[in-house]
């Protein structure tokens, strides 16, 4: 099991204002952002990622826009800095919201640069982006996924074409001379990751054999991973566990109390991230028609999307306790032994997964506390992960049957 560390590089200095306005996104004026403090935020996180490089924890970055919960506004900017200042670990950018970026060829070039600068350490995440990212990008929410898959195809073709320019004239993108320099270090292209919530998305990712990542909800992970495994089996291959990633908040301490206290601070991320004013939560076209019909029938929308615990309770992520988050598999917390056991249990629950993305920093967890959290995880939890036995792929036989049938055709 590979381990990754992730932080959103939040700006908690302005969170009181976010609470007061009832939103942490889109409309909060940036007069509340002090660039001097902002520089400190970036530098400390880059230092934490350098520590990861020494500890052997891989790095994950994401991006959001117009928000105080994530000041990493361009995944490729921080990615390129880390490509140069780290030496060992892999760098996962999860990801570039490609349906919101007008120029996929530029995305391919930037990613290729990072892959070369890092000497082949890039993992390339391509994401749909949250609904509230539509307003800052002002891209059309209708037919967004059509644009997503088209951009995906174009990026991979740009990265893997080496015999001069090709033509791409389609509904969404128009180029006559696609010929990126540099080309990526990894051939044919860096590994592709996609985040997903629904089983349908899991199936679409399986068809392309990319890594599927689930975030912060055990329920979402098991449904989506299952759908991926099944779709892979239908197509005659058994999806290995390295195709699955799960991102979870982690607080580990020398005592249970210390681990939970750290987790409580990291959870500042999940407690603020969903607070978005209603107009930006669900632009028309972003969700499929039946899903929107179901939401209308459910009546006035809840102010915040709820999270399910494994035993079926519903929790409000803006107010949940560490224990409630643990019950939803949003948080792993406690002593190294306890955290290890939680990872093991979760692995059973989702049928196995090969990439554990820990959010070892979030909310108000300080630099020193973050370093202590990461070190303890690297020293006491990571070495034991190889002990974890992977469950058998329940679609393994189906995959074999279909592979044999395919071979016979």
């Amino acid at each position, binding site marked *: 099991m590979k381990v990754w560390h992730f932080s959103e590089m939040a700006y908690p200095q302005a969170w009181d204002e976010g609470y007061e306005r009832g939103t942490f996104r889109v*409309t909060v004026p940036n007069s509340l952002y002090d660039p001097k403090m902002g520089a400190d935020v970036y530098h400390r996180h880059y230092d934490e990622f350098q520590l990861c490089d020494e500890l052997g924890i891989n790095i994950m970055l994401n991006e959001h826009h117009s928000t105080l919960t994530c000041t990493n506004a361009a995944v490729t900017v921080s990615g390129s800095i880390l490509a140069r200042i780290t030496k060992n670990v892999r760098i996962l950018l999860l990801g570039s919201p490609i349906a919101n970026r007008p120029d996929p060829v530029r995305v391919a070039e930037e990613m290729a640069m990072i892959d070369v600068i890092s000497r082949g350490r890039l993992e390339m995440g391509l994401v749909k982006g949250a609904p509230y990212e539509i*307003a800052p990008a*002002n*891209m*059309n*929410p*209708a*037919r967004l996924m059509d644009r997503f898959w088209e951009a995906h195809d174009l990026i991979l073709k740009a990265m893997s074409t080496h015999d001069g320019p090709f033509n791409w004239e389609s*509904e969404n993108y128009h180029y006559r001379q696609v010929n990126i320099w540099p080309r990526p270090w990894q051939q044919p292209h860096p590994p592709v990751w996609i985040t997903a919530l629904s089983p349908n998305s899991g199936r679409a990712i399986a068809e392309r054999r990319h890594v599927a990542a689930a975030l912060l909800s055990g329920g979402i992970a098991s449904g989506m991973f299952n759908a991926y495994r099944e779709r892979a089996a239908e197509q005659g291959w058994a999806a290995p566990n390295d195709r699955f990633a799960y991102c979870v908040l982690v607080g580990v301490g020398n005592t249970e109390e210390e681990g939970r206290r750290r987790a409580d601070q990291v959870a500042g991320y999940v407690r603020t991230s969903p607070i978005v*004013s*209603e*107009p*930006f939560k669900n*632009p*028309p*076209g972003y969700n499929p*028609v*039946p899903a*929107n*019909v179901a939401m*209308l*029938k459910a*009546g006035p929308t809840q102010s915040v999307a709820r999270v399910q615990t494994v035993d079926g309770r519903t929790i409000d992520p803006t107010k949940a306790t560490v224990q409630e988050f643990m019950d939803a598999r949003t948080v792993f917390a406690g002593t190294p032994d306890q955290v290890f056991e939680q990872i093991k249990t979760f692995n059973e629950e989702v049928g196995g997964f090969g990439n554990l993305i820990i959010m070892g920093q979030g909310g108000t967890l300080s630099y020193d506390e973050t370093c202590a959290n990461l070190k303890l995880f690297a020293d006491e939890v990571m070495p034991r992960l190889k002990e974890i036995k992977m469950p058998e792929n329940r679609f393994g036989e189906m995959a074999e049957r279909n592979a044999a049938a395919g071979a016979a055709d």
Partner: protein
Amino acid sequence: MSLATTRVDISGVSIDLLESGDGPAMLYLHGGRGHFGFEPFLEELAKTHRVIAPWLPGFGHSELPRSYTTIDDLAFFGLDLLEAMDLRDTALVGAGFGGWVAAEMAIRSTERLRSLTLIDALGVKFGDHLVREIADIHAMYPDEVNKTLYSDPDRFRLRTEGMSDDDLTALVRLGEAEVLFGWKPYMHNPKLRHWLHRINVPTLVAWGEKDAMVSTEYGRQYAAAIPGARFEIVDGAGHYPGLERPLETATLVSDFAGQGV
């Protein structure tokens, strides 16, 4: 005389179409709320005209062809509809978003039109880049949206409680289609203003006095950009005069369309 809905095929696109009345043809193009709540208005119009009111492609339960991406597609669809139904000397009436479609049709061809009526129409940008003339309802809470669209939101806002799945689906598809055609540029075509001079049939621009989606000032500029167009205010109405003042609006529209018949 009452509205009947039929399923028709217009140049390969299957759509729902409301029809009622006898007399000279009137093609009515709906706004962002579709035909929900506009029955009294349409029935009033049908007293003097043969009213044909399609659900535009992608709206309601009408099919949305994959190739449809911009307002041009709806304009050409509208012209195809006039031809397919062999409508001549047609009074073309468009409200809100449908007003935009009607204007886009009229700059392309007025061959089958006898007149054009735009009611609180969208589609044009007059001000400079820092001025937002069309309210951004996608940045508003539902209460604000209702205050923007209606002079009397309590009475006229759309209520989804108790709506059938069929109607809810129609409603969701309305919102999605309007976004597909009108997200960026927002509810307008930067080119349209420069071609309005081509409209060569009698034109009425009617505007809800209390429209906060697009102001009466915007309406006056719209009228001024169309040769010889007349401008009229509908007292007390918001963005949907046909909904909030059905009789007054229908009388205004019918009288104008009937002139010189």
